[in-house]
């Protein structure tokens, strides 16, 4: 047995090594690769997330905007809040993002823009609502998402989002309105004929969204069950046939019926008391993938029928849990619809 002294020395070496790895993780490139690249691209070219390397973006936003965006995320808009990162780590990531656009980052005076939000509202509806939504809710989906066809090269941000409002200063919003963003549909509204006073009014209106912020629309994890489970008084075969019929009746195409262990064991050894029915409505799949291309992991729809100890039960995922996983309020409506569809199919098959 090692002596206490030897044990302590070993322990402290281990901790020192652990601390070193944490210190090393303040390497911005590494932190970016670990936390950001999957959505924003290895070189900031965008994807599920916005293209951070876009020169006009880089030269229009402050370090503070980037830091606060990382810290707060965009609740309900895919971009998560990175609360687990230290301030040093956040700054290291921002420094790395800045390496794509050499030069001194822009800074704005911390002066509140004075304007008339009522007049700004009228101007907003005329000039901004088409892209940013009537209530500043932003365009559908997010980022540039190369995997799906898009009408726009970049999705208009949600201006009424608490994360955006916390990160963007009045002066930053004003500068964006005045100068536009080259390489995106955001044009200079000075060039479009608005005056600086008009732009101040729009900034005041956008800032007034802070007074209308609703609670985070994404359900909390503990509010949601992972699955839906029903009991069936029928046999496995009868229940499977009834699910198939009910799904077809709801405009779904049954694409596959298989035993749960299909592909894991030899065909003649499969457990035919655990059966998965896959069914699909491709319009719904397309809608879900347009909102978030990652949502495909829960598609196509599937229901599993299981017999255990003579009792038959029916199991499906709870689609509403998706909204929590994806931090995407837009998926709420679709997930609620999917949940009702699952329930009605299973109830029809088991009642």
């Amino acid at each position, binding site marked *: 047995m090692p002596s206490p002294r030897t044990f302590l020395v070993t322990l402290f070496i281990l901790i020192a090594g652990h*601390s070193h790895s944490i210190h090393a993780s303040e390497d911005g490139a590494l932190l970016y690769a670990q936390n950001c690249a999957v959505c924003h691209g290895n070189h900031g070219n965008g994807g599920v997330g916005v293209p951070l390397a876009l020169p006009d973006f880089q030269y229009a936003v402050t370090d503070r905007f980037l830091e606060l965006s990382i810290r707060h995320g965009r609740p309900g808009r895919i971009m998560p809040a990175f609360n*687990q990162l230290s301030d040093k780590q956040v700054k290291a990531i921002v420094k790395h993002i800045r390496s794509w656009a050499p030069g001194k980052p822009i800074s704005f005076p911390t002066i509140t823009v004075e304007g008339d939000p009522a007049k700004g509202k009228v101007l907003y509806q005329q000039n901004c609502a088409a892209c940013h939504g009537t209530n500043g809710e932003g365009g559908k989906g997010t980022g540039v998402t190369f*995997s799906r066809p898009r009408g726009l090269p970049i999705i208009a941000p949600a201006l009424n989002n608490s994360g955006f409002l916390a990160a963007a200063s009045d002066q930053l919003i004003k500068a964006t309105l005045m100068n536009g963003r080259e390489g995106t549909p955001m044009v200079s509204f000075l060039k479009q004929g608005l005056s600086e006073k008009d732009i101040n009014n729009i900034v005041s209106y956008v800032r007034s969204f802070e007074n209308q912020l609703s609670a985070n629309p994404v359900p909390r994890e503990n509010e949601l069950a992972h699955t839906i489970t029903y009991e069936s008084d029928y046999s496995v075969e009868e229940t499977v046939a009834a699910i198939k019929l009910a799904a077809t009746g709801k405009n779904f195409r049954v694409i596959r019926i298989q035993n749960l262990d299909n592909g894991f064991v030899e065909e003649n050894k499969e457990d035919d008391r655990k059966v998965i029915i896959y069914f699909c409505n491709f*319009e719904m799949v397309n809608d879900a993938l347009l909102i978030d291309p990652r949502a495909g992991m829960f598609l*196509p729809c599937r229901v*599993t029928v299981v017999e*255990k100890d003579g009792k038959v*039960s029916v199991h499906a995922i709870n689609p509403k849990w998706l909204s929590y996983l994806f931090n995407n309020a837009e998926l709420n409506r679709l997930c609620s619809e999917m949940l009702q569809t699952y329930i009605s199919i299973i109830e029809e098959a088991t009642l």
Partner: protein
Amino acid sequence: MISLSHFRYLLIVPAFMLAFHSSIVQADTLLMARTTQDFPEAMLKLQETIKNKGYVVSRVQRIDIGLTSSGYKTDKYRLVFFGKPQQIKELSDQYPHLIPYLPFNISIFAEGEETLLVMVSPTTLKENAYPELDKMLETLERDVKEIFAIMRQDN
């Protein structure tokens, strides 16, 4: 000379340090990876890596084929179902509430010249009432993270 009582006391400090360091690593709800490999190469490598980790790829669902045949435009998009035969059996026998998530799957889709991989973090399915299940889900999560790390090696 360090006495036994000092030894115990001294252990408390590093224990707190380690506990703090562990707590700052927040669980992710989604595991994701981006690879600079194009879709066909990434798809091959993913299946190979899954197998090398001791799992079986039971099936590949071609989401893009169904979409395009229904008139929708999409880039390549597949679901790779995988697991270990015994694990799938035990999980479905002992934890029926997990059945809808079985077999596990990784979605893989093209984004331009690159490829993205996404999976629900298995530990989001943890249930405090079942420590053995939690341990299994933690192992699975560690394996998937390693698979994704291998996939990122081409970046």
